[in-house]
């Protein structure tokens, strides 16, 4: 039994041990650099592969939701479709508009990919598996996340196209609006954990009472925070139903209308990498990071739990994309400022009440009411405000 436990422990730490073993061949002075290069390579390889896999999963899933097959030609069940897509985008002509600002136009896709990968530096993907344990990790994540907005605007502005500019304006308006509830929703976790370090936050959640973990999502304020965070994350990563910045039916492809070939693919890559990163942060903050969902499952290697949770969230993203139509601009803004912002602020209050009240069922009751009642009231208020009127067209009648 102890042998087995030891083996599982070794398996859990296999990547950490492998990294240590590889680094032991380097001179001590070069070890920090080697460690960084090793981690960066691993992150880029793993998440680029995941990107390829997810594009295939998404196309299959969306297809099935619309009673289609999805890709099924390249390889078994179309599994090699991402490779075919990659070859296609690499062999396509790279067109830059004549009037575009060439330098900025070139830099935007590079910057957006770089910015989307930066957030992974602070995500703990397994026990002891984090690239850097910053004591302001969450802050760092949001800071580099807002770099993506800059890249989006660079792309839209430098293209000199009305569609690009419209898409970029929409993207900026949307991303800034939703950054507010995104950050506010995660603050409740920081309040409870008392730390900005992602590793400390996960460690706090990786303890169990009975078989149940101490995940923050299993509290009223944590659940509300998680839902708000996921809605805001969907908007942040420009995914349906918040895909206004690239609304095909109105503005061609939004801010990357004027990109073709591999630069276009880079925007696509950045969108997915950004989505994985925000999902990863949601897992870290609310879903206990790499910790197992039940105490009797702790023997399963921790990184498997992280990626299982990540894939579950991605599946949820795909499911939502297959279900909901795109919002209108005013609906998008109303949701952010009239529903999510008050809910996130009230949620802060709820978290404070939870912190101050003694543990017990009363705390649960009070906090649940503090979450559910405003949610219903706000929803009703928003519904009542809607005045649908019959439009009359004076000149066509």
């Amino acid at each position, binding site marked *: 039994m102890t042998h087995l436990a030891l083996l599982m422990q070794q398996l859990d730490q296999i990547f950490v041990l492998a990294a240590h073993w590889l680094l032991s061949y380097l001179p001590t002075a070069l070890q920090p650099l080697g460690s960084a290069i090793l981690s960066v390579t691993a992150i880029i390889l793993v998440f680029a592969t995941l990107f390829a896999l997810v594009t295939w999963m998404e196309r299959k899933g969306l297809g099935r*939701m619309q009673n289609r097959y999805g890709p099924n030609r390249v390889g078994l069940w179309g599994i090699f479709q991402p490779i075919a897509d990659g070859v296609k985008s690499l062999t396509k002509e790279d067109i830059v508009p004549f009037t575009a600002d060439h330098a900025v136009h070139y830099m935007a896709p590079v910057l957006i990919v770089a910015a989307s990968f930066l957030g992974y530096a602070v995500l703990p993907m397994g026990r002891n598996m984090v690239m850097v344990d910053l004591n302001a990790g969450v802050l760092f994540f949001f800071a580099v996340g807002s770099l993506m907005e800059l890249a989006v605007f660079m792309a839209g502005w430098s293209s000199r196209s009305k569609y690009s500019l419209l898409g970029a304006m929409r993207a900026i308006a949307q991303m800034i609006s939703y950054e507010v509830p995104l950050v506010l929703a995660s603050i409740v976790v920081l309040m409870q954990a008392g730390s900005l370090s992602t590793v400390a936050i996960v460690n706090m959640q990786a303890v169990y009472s009975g078989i149940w973990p101490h995940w923050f999502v299993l509290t009223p304020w944590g659940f509300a925070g998680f839902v708000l965070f996921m809605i805001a994350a969907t908007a942040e990563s420009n995914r349906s139903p918040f895909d206004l910045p690239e609304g095909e039916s109105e503005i061609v492809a939004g801010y990357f209308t004027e990109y073709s070939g591999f630069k276009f693919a880079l925007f696509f890559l950045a969108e997915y990498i950004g989505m994985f990163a925000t999902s990863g942060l949601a897992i870290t903050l609310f879903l206990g990071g790499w910790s197992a969902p039940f105490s009797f499952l702790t023997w399963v290697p921790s990184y498997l739990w992280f990626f299982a949770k990540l894939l579950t969230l991605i599946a949820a993203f795909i499911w939502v994309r297959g279900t909901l139509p795109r919002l209108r601009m005013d609906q998008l803004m109303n949701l952010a400022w009239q529903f999510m912002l008050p809910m996130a602020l009230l949620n802060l209050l709820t978290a404070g009440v939870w912190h101050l009240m003694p543990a017990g069922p009363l705390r649960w009751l009070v906090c649940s009411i503090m979450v559910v009642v405003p949610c219903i009231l706000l929803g009703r208020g928003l519904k009542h405000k809607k005045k649908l009127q019959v439009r009359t067209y004076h000149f066509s009648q």
Partner: protein
Amino acid sequence: MVGEGILKGLAETARNFFGSYVSKDRLTTVQYPEQREPQIEATRDFPFLVYDGADWQQGLRCVACQICEKECPPKCIFIEKSKDKKPDAFGKSQFYPAIFNIDISVCMSCQICVEVCPFDAIKMDVDYHQSTDDRFGGLLFNKQRLAKSNEYYNAIHPTEAAAVDAQRAEELAKLEAKAKAAAEAKAAAEATLAQKAPAQPAAGEQQ
């Protein structure tokens, strides 16, 4: 309740997702190169030229009247009229197209050429496998490539072709009747002439 509609929608897509794995009836996709839906009879894509009989050059119904060339909205038809004439299916001496080209990359399959043709010479084809990597040679159809037999036309559009054939047969019968009547009248006239002619000398002889 807020979000009720969203939950209903999510349930619907989940039902579709799992249902498509359980019941094949949900999947309406036709796996194209292997499976093909039968075409409806009125299918049409690009025009072709109908010929009667075995020899396409002899039997071409087209008389190079160039109405289709003039009517064609995207101007994809090019016809050059012949210098000499040859008899058509009705035995009438007619011109024929020395060159008849259709650029099917320009053709928009509107069928106007078919509507305006007074000779039932141009009809719509159903063969849509025309993609090629040779833009000029492969998509510019000449007279030989356009010529297809009346049997083929009967095979792809049976009802329409039968009506056309019946009409042509009627016309031919009418023409034949007319020719026969003319021949009879001529024969009768000749007969009376012959009756009279020998009678006259006879009369002369009698006189």
